[in-house]
């Protein structure tokens, strides 16, 4: 069964992982800019990383028939450094037109500090000015509820954003309602230790419903599984769900979300296209 992994940090994974993902049905993925496990000392290091994400990775993925897309930003773990954040944000625009850049991400909050929040607002402003979609990281563990609430409040208060073009990721049982009820897309990340198991992800779908929700592996340099989505699909089969329901979650939903970007080359089902003419707060309804 084909699937799209909306959140996979492939710079941290081996070529064998691309091979395994392709073997298990992955046809496209998006690779958000994130923290490498240490704080970079200059904006030059970020530029190297943005070049990697927009040049080397799409070529590596293509060898296995996987479309590679990316989101660029100053990530939440380094966003408390305001000086560096401003330098990185100033350099971002020249990368946004590259062919595999879907938008700004994964921005958000980590420990929910004042500085992180200011950097988050700066990057929302950047996304609005350049009419880009946004992928948002929410904090982990005890910080998740507070951080998600602050992110949602900030976005709603901003008034310029189109919620259907924003996915708020790492949603869990206590945060998903506020995301969905405010019109955003929600991401559930299937991570073996700190995030959500396939079983709990299905439980969430049985509570909230399957619309505007995507699942992803969030595979990175930590304990994580590049094949988390096929494992999720297997768990849905164990629960006796029909293939069309599974397909909706692992392919149609991410395709529908991503098809709002003109960069995304796969077609969602016609009935699920979101960019109807005239729709949206910024008046155009056009693809970004």
């Amino acid at each position, binding site marked *: 069964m084909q699937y799209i992994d909306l959140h996979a940090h492939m710079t941290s994974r081996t070529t064998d992982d691309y091979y395994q993902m392709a073997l298990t049905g992955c046809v496209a993925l998006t690779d958000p800019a994130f923290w490498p496990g240490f704080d970079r000392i200059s904006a030059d290091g970020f530029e190297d990383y943005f070049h990697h994400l927009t040049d080397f990775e799409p070529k590596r993925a293509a060898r296995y028939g996987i479309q590679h897309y990316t989101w660029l930003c100053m990530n939440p773990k380094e966003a*408390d450094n305001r000086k560096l954040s401003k330098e990185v944000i100033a350099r971002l625009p020249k990368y946004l037109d590259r062919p595999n850049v879907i938008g700004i991400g994964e921005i958000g909050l980590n420990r929910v500090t004042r500085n*992180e929040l200011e950097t988050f607002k700066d990057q929302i402003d950047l996304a609005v000015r350049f009419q880009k979609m946004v992928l948002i990281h929410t904090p982990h563990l005890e910080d998740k509820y507070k951080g998600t609430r602050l992110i949602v409040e900030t976005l709603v208060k901003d008034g310029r954003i189109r919620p259907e073009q924003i996915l708020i990721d790492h949603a869990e049982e206590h945060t998903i*309602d506020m995301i969905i009820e405010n019109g955003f897309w929600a991401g559930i990340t299937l991570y073996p230790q700190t995030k959500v198991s396939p079983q709990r992800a299905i439980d969430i779908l049985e509570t909230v419903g399957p619309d505007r929700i995507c699942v992803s592996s969030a595979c990175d340099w930590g304990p994580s599984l590049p094949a988390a989505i096929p494992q999720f699909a297997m768990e849905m089969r164990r629960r*006796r769900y029909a293939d069309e329901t599974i397909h909706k979650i692992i392919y149609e939903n991410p395709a529908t979300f991503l098809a709002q970007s003109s960069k995304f080359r796969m077609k969602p089902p016609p009935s699920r296209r979101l960019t109807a003419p005239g729709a949206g707060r910024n008046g155009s309804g056009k693809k970004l």
Partner: protein
Amino acid sequence: MASQPLKCPMTKQQILDEHFIENRTRLLDIAAFLDRLDRTGRDGGEADFRAEVFSEAIALLWRPSPSRVKTIQMIFSDPTTAPLALLDQKSARGAYDRDRREAP
């Protein structure tokens, strides 16, 4: 705004038949974790806010609730609303320390 929830195609009996053993194992893992804490505690370990919150969460498992998982998520969560003035640590620890003091 929300869509219709998916209806689980399995019956209660089918869920028990298929998932009882794996959840029995998880329960025993938690029991063994608590025993391990007790054993090391006898050697003079200090009280830790995470162990206290963990016990509180376990006690809530049998209390009637529309969603046990949401209730327990909130027990572990930071209930405050104001952003931190300064970054104190890079990573979360899994539970909110209710006795922590933040710099103004």
